[in-house]
Structure formats: structure tokens, C-alpha cells
């Protein structure tokens, strides 16, 4: 997703001199082309995320469209107050780009596990929070976020689902994409873990269970209508996120369905439960360790009371 992001941003920078990319001294080998082609639109702020985010705000207040770039938690956590007080409160077009959502940097340890980012960013007023599921969504979201006013958070995963774009499909922020039809249950996924959900749906289909699959690339604002429909029309909802279950996708779906007065027949959140991972391993390995890979999703669907019938039939 990172490559698609920078490729699209490069095209945007060429057409729009307001675009500025600020890195917190990360992106080795990835940002070279951008820096060489647009030296006036590229800043290395150094290893200084608070200054980077304040700088971004100052530039945005003067009319620039700014992207801040660093890996995992570095781009938003230490400088959270700058995102809140400076960028968001001043309605600045500052787009905070986290490279390596969830366990993307699995083997590097918990400092590099971005597993609370969506919950934290979602709580900030006015922010648009996006976690693309595939590379097409990543590229399209990059451009869409720059085009709209206000502050955003873009979580880019190392993993990505196979390209899911339908012929002629246009990307729209805040609109859930339905990638598979099905009424037995709904798999609701955000981020690159969408790939696991699609693989699980394929496996379940061979067992006679037809899952609807939704890509929630925009966590905020949330497309509640599609979720309400899924809750009404299918046997249950399973939310899937490479993130703590507290405050992220699962929470957002549950809160909004409750408020809409809709109770799914079954509801389950797949994600981390009150855990820091101290297990060493790749993204795939950690997904399996923490019960959020394809096999875990299949098992969870098979255990759902409403789908047992579908699978037995």
C-alpha cells in the first residue's frame, strides 16, 4: 500500500504545488523519487514528530495540503496533542499517514505494533479515519483525503487483499464496499486483514455457507446504512480488525447498530483483547497467534448458531 500511496501522491504533487510531504526521517528508498522531483514539496522534519505535526499545521494554515509520514505509532501517538489541538481544532488539511498498520512490523516488537491507532484517532472530532483493505483503496483514499478539507488519518498496511475494484467502480470516502454477496453471515473488515476475510469467505462457500463481505475502508464517518442492512438481512455480523477490539471497528459497528435499534442475530468482534503482543513473528504469524487469520475467521463463523444450519444444509 505504501508504494501505491507514494505513487499517487507523486502524481498529485505534480499537478498541485500546494501538496507537501513531511517525513519524520523514515521512508528509506521509498521517498527518493518524490524528494528529487519536488524538493520544494518535501521536508524531512528529522526524528521529531511533534515539530513535524506543528510544522504541518503551520503550512496547512497557509494553504498547503500536507501529508505527514512515518511508521506505525510514531506518526500519531507522541504528537497526538498536535494532531488534536493544532491540526484538527484548526480544521487543517493535514493528512497523517501511518505506514504499517497492525502487525505489519510484527517481528520488531510492540513499539512498532499499531494496534490502538484506529480507536484513538476515531475519538478525535472531525477526523476522517481510513484503513484501506487493498492497494486500489489505498491509492484512491490518498487522493480523496487531499481533496476534502480537514484532518485525516490514513493507516496503510503491509498486507493487502487482492485488488477488489469492480470494473468502472469509483471510490468514495465513507461508503462501505460490498465485495461478496451472501445472507448466511457478514464479515465486516477494515484494513489489509480484509484479505483474510475474503479467503475465509471463499473457504466457507465451499462448505455451503455464503458470507457477505464488507470492506470498511472508512471507519469514520461510518456508513451505518450498509451495516444496518447487513444486520437485518444476514445471520450475524463478525467484525475483523488487526487492532484492539476496544474502540475500533467492532466498537464502532456495535455502537451504531445499537443506536439504530438493530440487533444482529449474532455479533462477534475479532481482534486483540487487552493484549500487548510480546510474541515475535511476522504479520501472518501474529494473526494466527491472536486468532484473526483466515482459519480463525472460518472457525468463528462455523461456531455461529445461525450459520451452523447453513453449513449443515
Amino acid at each position, binding site marked *: 500500500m505504501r508504494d501505491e500511496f507514494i505513487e499517487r501522491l507523486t502524481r498529485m504533487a505534480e499537478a498541485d504545488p500546494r501538496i507537501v510531504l513531511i517525513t519524520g526521517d523514515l521512508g528509506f528508498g521509498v521517498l527518493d523519487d518524490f524528494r528529487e522531483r519536488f524538493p520544494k514539496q518535501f521536508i524531512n522534519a528529522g526524528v*521529531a514528530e*511533534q*515539530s513535524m505535526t*506543528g*510544522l504541518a499545521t*503551520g503550512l*496547512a494554515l*497557509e494553504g498547503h495540503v500536507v501529508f505527514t509520514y512515518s511508521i506505525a505509532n510514531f506518526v500519531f501517538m507522541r504528537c497526538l496533542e*498536535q494532531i488534536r489541538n493544532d491540526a484538527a481544532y*484548526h480544521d487543517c488539511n493535514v493528512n497523517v499517514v501511518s505506514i504499517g498498520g497492525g502487525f505489519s512490523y510484527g517481528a520488531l516488537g510492540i513499539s512498532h505494533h499499531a494496534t490502538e491507532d484506529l480507536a484513538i484517532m476515531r475519538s478525535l472530532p472531525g477526523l476522517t479515519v481510513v484503513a484501506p483493505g487493498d492497494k486500489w483503496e489505498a491509492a484512491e483514499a490518498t487522493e480523496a483525503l487531499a481533496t476534502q478539507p480537514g484532518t485525516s488519518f490514513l493507516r496503510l498496511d503491509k498486507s493487502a487483499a487482492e485488488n477488489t475494484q469492480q470494473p468502472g467502480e469509483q471510490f468514495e470516502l465513507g461508503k462501505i464496499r460490498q465485495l461478496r454477496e451472501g445472507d448466511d453471515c457478514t464479515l465486516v473488515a477494515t484494513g489489509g486483514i480484509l484479505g483474510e476475510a475474503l479467503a475465509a469467505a471463499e473457504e466457507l462457500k465451499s462448505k455451503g455457507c455464503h458470507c457477505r463481505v464488507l470492506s470498511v475502508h472508512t471507519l469514520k464517518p461510518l456508513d451505518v446504512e450498509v451495516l444496518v442492512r447487513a444486520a437485518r438481512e444476514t445471520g450475524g455480523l463478525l467484525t475483523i480488525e488487526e487492532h484492539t477490539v476496544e474502540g475500533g471497528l467492532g466498537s464502532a459497528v456495535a455502537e451504531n447498530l445499537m443506536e439504530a435499534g438493530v440487533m444482529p442475530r449474532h455479533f462477534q468482534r475479532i481482534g486483540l483483547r487487552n493484549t500487548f503482543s510480546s510474541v515475535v513473528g511476522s504479520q501472518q504469524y501474529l494473526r494466527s497467534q491472536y486468532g484473526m487469520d483466515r482459519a480463525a475467521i472460518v472457525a468463528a463463523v462455523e461456531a455461529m448458531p445461525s450459520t451452523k444450519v447453513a453449513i449443515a444444509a
Partner: protein
Amino acid sequence: MNTQELARKIRIDAVHMTSRGGSSHVGAILSMADIVAVLYGSVMNIDPADPRKADRDRFLLSKGHAGAGVYAALAEVGFFPVENLRTHYQDGSKLSGHVSHKGIPGVEFSTGSLGHGLPVGTGMAYSAKLRGAGHRVFVLLGDGECDEGSNWESILFAAHHQLDNLVAIVDFNKIQSLASVSETLALEPFADKWRSFGWHVEEVDGHDHAKLRERLETSAPGKPTCVLAHTTKGKGVSFMEDSVLWHYRSPQGEELAAALQELKEVA
């Protein structure tokens, strides 16, 4: 209005505002009143009739707790009616205890948490350089605020990028929240710290308008400027001067009357 008169009005407004609201930080406002008066009354290119004009000088109050002083300055130079100051800190007001830009013409940036103004001012100065714009960016910091690491990140950045259109002014009154600066986290040798980071440093009596004007109009090619303004916390009201107490205490009753008496007697 000359800057002495503007400073006197800012002080009187601030004493009234902090009294009416029962709010803190009058000492911090009195400390910086002369700096703010010289900027708004003389140094900065600003236009109350066109608060967002493109070539205006930018001013960011990083020590946002002294926001009442900026509201007072803006009102006194004509950005909004002076009567509006009466709403400060009151229910439903736009004039919050820490400076906020929402709905207030002339406020460039909202602060309140320390260490935010300089990074943002650095971004504004960087943008002006990119666009070849000639205006300057002034950021006013407290001395205690210089404990915040974010400032030092920006001090590195501004020097590295030779932002000679950026001026950081430190209201150096030597008192912070609970005790003196030297007892809390010593800053000295303070001027040398800025110099060693690559800044041009001017030290000045922060209550001497002629000298402040001269120093604030100075710039050094290729270097951002730090004006270390030596000030007295609570300046202008004898019993508030050099006192930690008046970082927090709100003037009421006889104290209010005595403070106003002293400020009104200034020629």
C-alpha cells in the same frame, strides 16, 4: 494610540477580565503586556479592517494562558469592540481562558497546552519562504514553557532551514508555575543555548518600548531570531510583581481597586 498607552490599557483590561472571570494568570499577562503592545501597536504589519490580509505579519501566543492580554490588545487596536472583553471567561463566550481563534478576528492560532506555538510558527515561516512572501512570524513563549521538548525540536528545525523570517520572543520573567525557573529546571545559560542551536539572539529589557521595538525589527540574514525579553512577572502592580501567587490568584475587592489605582496612575 502610542504603545505605552496601549500597554496600560491591556493591563487594565486584563485586571478587569481576570477579576470578572475569577480567572488565573494575571501575572503572566502583565509580564508580557509591553511586548504585545509594541508588536500590535508598532512593529507588526496588521490591519483590523482586514484581519486575514495575505501580507500581514503573523503572531502566535504560545503561552496561551495569557490569552486575555491578546484579546485586550486586539480589541484596543480595533479588531473587535472593547465591550466584548466583558464576556471573557463567561458562560457562552467565545473568549476562553486560553487563547482561541474561533470567531475571534485577529487570533492567528489557538493554544493552551505549552510547546505548540513555535512548531506551528515554524511551519508558517517555512511556507512564507517557499512562496517568497515577505511577512514575518512572531511567536511569544513563556520561559517555563521552554521546558517543553517540542520547542527544541523546532529550534533545531528553524535554524537548519535558515528561517530568518521567524522571531521567537521569550517572556523571560524567571518565574514558572510553582516556583522560580532556576529552582525548577534551570535554563541558564539561556541565550547561549539558543546561540548554540544556530539562532541570532537579542537580549532586551522587556518593558522598554524603544528597545523592544528596535530589537523586534532586527533580523539576521539566514538565522531565526530569539528575543530574550527580560521581564518582571506581574509588572505594573507592585504587590503582584515577582510573585508566584499571582500566576493563579484573581484580583478581587481591595486588591482589584489597588491594582487599578496603580495602573491608572501611570502617566
